[in-house]
């Protein structure tokens, strides 16, 4: 497609998703889904998004995808943040399409079939990657390449308990990426008791000899892993920006009507300044994601990875902080379950440290910058 066609399709999809969410993701719906440890509570939402083509966005047209590239997911995830669309959506939107796009040649036929099924929403995909944190690698553990293929344990894999297909990432000295169908002999998926955050987690153990569908090895795998993590970070950042947007919009609306001392609290300069600061940070959060998406196609992989880290670092820091400002602007009611606001805050904190909070990503980015001799990234 030409660029303007791509943009038109992306905008059309976003509008369709927005209309769907207006009906099927009201605050009450999302409250129910958010607190639930049961995937069944978000099955209708996931199916609806599949029907709209959300999981086909970045899949190549040859695999029944929309061929818009993962950059088109960024505005969608900002919307998902604004509407608190949670559950196994990120992995499902990103991974099948990205893998099909990156691995078109010689892809294992069964793997191809599984991924194409996922594109149309007939299978659920999750990611087992020990690299979802650097500082907490002891908690995350990870997979590596053993004598008979990928093996090991990932301590926390998001949505793995409800997945039919797991993307396994081995990031040791011999990098590899493979699929595994669940259930499978040798594969253990143990759900973890969660605190409400919008996502479910499971520990994933792959025993030696588990039947895998290899996707990439060596340098190709290393690059694929960098790419998967970069896009995951950028979409998480976009979701965080959306959460911040919704929180600050709610807060601004509230301080216009809420009265104390005989006038709207939004009249008070202290309130204005908190709202203004939170707004500016939200605008920057949106723009830092948008800029990374704009750059994705033109940048070398390592530079794009750095841009995604920077976006995630910014949004990890200011997403939660904007939500905190929004709670403060609401006063006591902002701290209760009377309003949806608290879920936006809880979600933002959950996303903050998933694939790196601002501290570990700043360190990683600093190291990348030093490794590159001070030039980009």
């Amino acid at each position, binding site marked *: 497609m030409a660029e303007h066609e791509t943009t038109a399709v992306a905008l059309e999809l976003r509008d369709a998703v927005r209309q769907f969410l207006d009906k099927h993701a009201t605050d009450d719906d999302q409250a129910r889904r958010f607190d639930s440890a049961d995937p069944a509570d978000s099955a209708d939402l996931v199916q609806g998004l599949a029907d709209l083509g959300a999981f086909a966005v970045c899949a190549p047209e040859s695999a029944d995808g929309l061929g818009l590239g993962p950059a088109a997911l960024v505005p969608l995830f900002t919307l998902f943040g604004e509407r608190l669309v949670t559950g196994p959506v990120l992995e499902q939107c990103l991974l099948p399409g990205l893998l099909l796009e990156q691995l078109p040649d010689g892809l294992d036929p069964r793997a191809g079939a599984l991924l194409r099924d996922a594109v149309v929403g007939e299978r659920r995909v999750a990611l087992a990657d020990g690299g979802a944190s650097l*500082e907490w690698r002891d*908690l995350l553990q990870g997979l590596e390449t053993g004598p008979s293929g990928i093996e090991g344990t990932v301590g926390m894999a998001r949505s793995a308990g409800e997945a039919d297909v797991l993307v396994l990432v081995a990031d040791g000295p011999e990098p590899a990426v493979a699929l595994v169908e669940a259930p499978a002999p040798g594969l253990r998926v143990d759900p*973890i008791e969660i*605190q409400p955050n919008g996502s479910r987690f499971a520990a994933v153990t792959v025993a030696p000899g588990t039947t895998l569908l290899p996707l990439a090895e060596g340098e190709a795998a290393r690059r694929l892993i960098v790419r998967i993590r970069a896009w995951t970070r950028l979409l998480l950042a976009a979701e965080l920006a959306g959460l911040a947007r919704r929180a600050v919009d709610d807060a601004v609306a509230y301080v216009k009507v809420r009265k*104390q001392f005989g006038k709207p609290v939004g009249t008070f300069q202290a309130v204005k300044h908190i709202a203004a600061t939170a707004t500016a940070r939200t605008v920057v959060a949106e723009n830092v994601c948008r800029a990374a998406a704009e750059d994705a196609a033109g940048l070398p992989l390592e530079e794009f990875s750095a841009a995604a880290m920077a976006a995630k670092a910014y949004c990890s820091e200011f997403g939660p902080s904007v939500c905190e400002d929004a709670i403060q602007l609401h006063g006591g009611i902002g701290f209760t379950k009377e309003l949806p606001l608290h879920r936006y805050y809880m979600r933002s904190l959950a996303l903050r440290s998933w694939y790196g909070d601002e501290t570990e990503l700043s360190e990683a980015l600093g190291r990348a910058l030093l490794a590159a001799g001070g030039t980009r990234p």
Partner: protein
Amino acid sequence: MSNSVHSPDLGEYRERARDWLRRATIPTVPLDLDGRFRVLRDWQRTLHEAGWVGITWSRDAGGQALSPWHQLAFSEELTRAGAPQPIGLIGLDVVGPSIDKFGTDQQRRTLLPRLLSGADIWCQGFSEPDAGSDLASLSTRAVPDGDDFVVDGQKVWTSWAPYAQWCALLVRTGDTGSRHRGISYLLVDMSSPGISVRPLVQMTGDTEFGEVFFDSVRVPRANLVGEVDGGWPIAQDTLSTERGWYTLRRQIEFSVGVQDAAAELCGHYEQAGASPSARVAAGLGRAAVAARALEAQTRRTIDRLVTSPGPNPMDSVDKLTVNELEQRIFASLVDLVGPGRTTTTAVRGLDTSRWTKEHYYSRAASIYGGTSQIQRTIIAERMLGLPRG
């Protein structure tokens, strides 16, 4: 902890408290609200029978007539022993002292003993949906009718409302625009017809706050504290003391919290034979610095409780400091569980559920009991003398 304003030697008192606590059966507090209320009320009775409740109250009012340092020392020992505070703090810190100072003999005689023992739990009906930070604009009306007042209106942020036997209620008895000059202070039996309560669920899942609705509730005139329209100074007088005690109790909880977190981490690293990362050490240290700063600040709070009780803009410095440092302490501690915060799994020995909940709760610190914004305005105008709008 040494003090500058002639603090008495508390060694013996502390020893007695420790000794008693060692022998006492420290209750396990259930998570459900009913159970929690029951257990904590029993615990208050136990403490009261042993002479550990109303430590600073006059003997006349049923207390121990000891100094604030004694109260603080006991609170410290209680917290260090892993024991909960008595449940009736609103009664003990706010309402009781008001009744003692401004109430009638009849009120003192009938209400204070049951307040101390926990037989009566008190709640505080001050804030309203449209009068939170601006308390003086409250609109719950009390209209005289024979020997009663008839009360209509709504209160909010009333803690333990569904469980309380009594409520200290601020009501408007003056004209609509009379603000703080038209407010009276009533004592209301919560079993009176016309009272209904709706709990408010907080982000932490706790439900001890609620909304209280008053629909033509009859309150005997004998339950008025002070004069009609004279309720404001009564509320102000003890609110300041409450803030002081709140600061002191929270500070103790934070210090113990930091030590608990350190002990959890220690246990983990010893068992794992590993050494903490710079980030873990610095996060714990950051919390420890904040806890120590707060401890230092509260020494001056207690000096004030002894030498010049009553409203003081320095109370707002305390409150603002607690807000800021509480948020810092728990942000620093919860930061150490990283991505584990979405689960209930212990991370590096840390009790994830506890620290995430404390962290969520800390966000309310800058709102409840007067927002940080209100405190800053008080500091600026009453302490620094900056001109009013």
